[in-house]
């Protein structure tokens, strides 16, 4: 009952929420459609990233502090096939030397990377993100598994992952950090709602 009420409220609040908790520069709807072609509808769960979340991220991913602009309201999209949740979509903007890189992350219900797509990136090597080899290094991995791909500095991807990126180490590291933050924040911020939703 509570879940239904929650969903209802979410749906009702969607337009305004949509406008305020825009996590990316672009509208991710088209990307969600590509990631979940079978989806019939979607849910948007808006929650605020506060200092508490920020501290938890600092503990889990040292040296990957959330920027001030990352604080505030954010939206997690739930791809639905009718009433059944297919998965979640989280769009994150990660700072890079080419400015912000926006990646749309498709997350399964077990909080593993299901797929991802680059929505906005100025890097000349952004095509790496779409390559199958590179994607396969991420898909199916949860937070802990992806964390093993991080070097001890907590910022850069290890050589095994870089080898899949066709000599694009920095872009690989940006994508990895984005994936880790996405899974962590999804769990921290929306974990409770998602458990409710899945039940």
């Amino acid at each position, binding site marked *: 009952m509570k879940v239904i009420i929650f969903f209802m409220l979410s749906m009702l609040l969607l337009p305004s929420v949509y406008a305020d908790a825009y996590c990316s*520069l*672009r509208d991710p709807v088209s990307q969600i459609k590509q990631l979940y072609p079978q989806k019939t509808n979607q849910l948007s769960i808006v929650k605020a990233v506060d200092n508490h979340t920020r501290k938890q991220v600092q503990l889990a991913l040292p040296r990957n502090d959330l920027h001030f*602009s990352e604080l505030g309201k954010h939206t997690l999209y739930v791809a639905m096939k009718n009433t059944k949740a297919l998965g979640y979509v989280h769009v994150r903007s990660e700072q890079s*030397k*080419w400015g*912000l890189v926006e990646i749309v992350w498709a997350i399964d219900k077990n909080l593993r990377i299901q797929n991802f797509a680059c929505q*906005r990136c*100025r*890097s*000349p090597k952004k095509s790496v993100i779409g390559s199958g080899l590179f994607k396969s290094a991420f898909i199916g991995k949860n937070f802990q598994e992806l964390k093993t791909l991080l070097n001890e500095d907590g910022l850069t991807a290890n050589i095994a992952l870089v080898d899949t990126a066709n000599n694009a180490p920095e872009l690989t590291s940006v994508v990895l950090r984005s994936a880790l933050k996405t899974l962590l924040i999804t769990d921290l911020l929306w974990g409770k709602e998602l458990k409710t939703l899945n039940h």
Partner: protein
Amino acid sequence: MKISNYNQLLAVSTLVSGMIIFATLWSQNQKVESISREHFESRLLAQTVNHISTMSQAWLTTQDLLFSGKQTYLVNGINIQSKQLTQTLIAIKTTDKSNNKLIQQLLAIIKSNKTIIDSFAQLTRIDDKVWQSTITKSDSLTAKYVMTLETLLQQVSVDNSALENKLIDANSFLAILTWVIISLYLIFISFIVTWFSKYIVKPIENITEAAQQSSDLEQNVEFMQEDAPAEVIALSSAIESFTQRITVEKHKADQERRNVITKNKQIKAIMNTIPCSLLLLNDHGVIQECNPEACRLFSKTKEEIISQNIAIFLPVLSMLDGQFDTKMLLRNMEESLLAPSFENPYIEFSGREIAINGSINYLLTITDINERKHSQKALSSLNQQLVNAEKLASIGQLSAGIAHEINNPVGFIHSNLDVLADYITPLTDYIKLVKIADQQEQAKAFYQKNDLDYILDDINPLIESSLEGTIRISKIIKDLGNYAHVDSKTPELISIDSLIEQSLTLVANELKYKVKIVKSLNANVSVMAFPQKLLQVFINMLVNASHAIENTGRISIYSGIVKDEINIRFEDDGSGISQEHLKNIFDPFFTTKPVGKGTGLGLHIVRSIIDEHDGHIEASSIVGQGSKFEIFLPIHSAAELNLPEVITIADDNLISK
């Protein structure tokens, strides 16, 4: 070739090799410097491009903030960043066309992007579609910008890496080249050193080794070096000849050393056995060296004698002011006395000046003459006894004549006394008669009867004759007494002429029957002499002359002054003396008389007495014509005889007596 030529060759080769080394290394170093400059500029370009990349990050992030937050007030900041990027890109100086092309592309993109960004500032109401399309345009441009920038960055990085590798290669090459050159130089030096060692040092070492051998071995050593520089060959030749000369000189020196050692041993033996003391004195009279005889003489050890002043032992060598009397030292065979502390003080010394190592020293010989002195005393005593014996013998010979000479006056004195005794009786009787007054006539008759006038006239001649006889006897006895009397030990002032007269008195009986005496006594001078001894001389002369005259003859006696000497000459016309015997007549125990007639000591004693008076005697003779003896006595006073003053006074007393 000479060492100097080798040195010139070495200097030139060293100079040339040094120049080659320097030129090569300098050239390579210039290359390295050039590459280093290029690399520096490339690194600077890379840093600039990296800086542009960093600026671009901020620039792009600021645009993203504008796009995401729609905060249009960021436009001005983005434009400022664009301007800075533009200025930085324009400031890049590169000759690479490709890089310049990329830079121009970047500048064009920034310019185009500025138009887009400026369009945001013109938006009055945010239209999402326009916004999104504008972002898309911007993203397209900035993506191209990022790609171009990365291309530029990569290109610059590649260029920089290439230059860095080139610099590393150049440095490596320079290092290798340096090592190769150093190695070649070391090899060259090693070769030169080896060559020098073989052709210059080795021959010198051979010479040195040979020279060291030569110091130990007597055998001939080969110094000659054939395979060596000219100087070394000349040096070896010179050393060879020099060594040969040294060897010869060494043999000479060895021989001389052995001679010196032998001489030293001889000198040492002489020094140790020489029967006189030898002392070496310095110019202050300090004893430097002495022989064992000196130790014996001074009854001291050598250590006690060395460094002592000679005056301690021989006071005569010290002047009144204590200075060393070198004049006295340099006398020859000077008799003297040691210090009073010595029991046997009689010595005789001689000194010589001797230069040792340029300094004046004195060699003093001292002969112990104590034994000789004692012998001399004994001999003198014996001689005196001999003289006395001879004198007594002559007295014996003369005694008969003297007795005869005494008997004559005694005879006529006795005769006179007999006559006078005969005269005394009538005279006393007459005196008695005269004393009686009434018998005057009787007295007168008695006077006439006894011829008292004759008696009275005869008495005086008788008495005078008797007195004369007693005077003659007295003179003979006195002369005999003087003759027989032993001389005092000191000379007396005597008249030679009167002494001759005395001798004539004593030998008068010997001469008067066969000899005519011719006297010419003109000396008329008194001398200091021993009268009895000279009297013995004159008697001997007269007796010998008398004996030389067999029957009758003449003896001439002369005295006079000849050149500060008294000349006394006895000349006879007797049988003479052969030349063979004439040279031996003064020898002791030489006589031509029959055994028992002469002692053979007469003339020997004569000469010893004359010698004692510092005089001399000469004899000449012609067989059959006679002999001549001339005596020369010096005329000297008491002072000249160095007699003590008291003795002179005593003589004066004697004279006064």
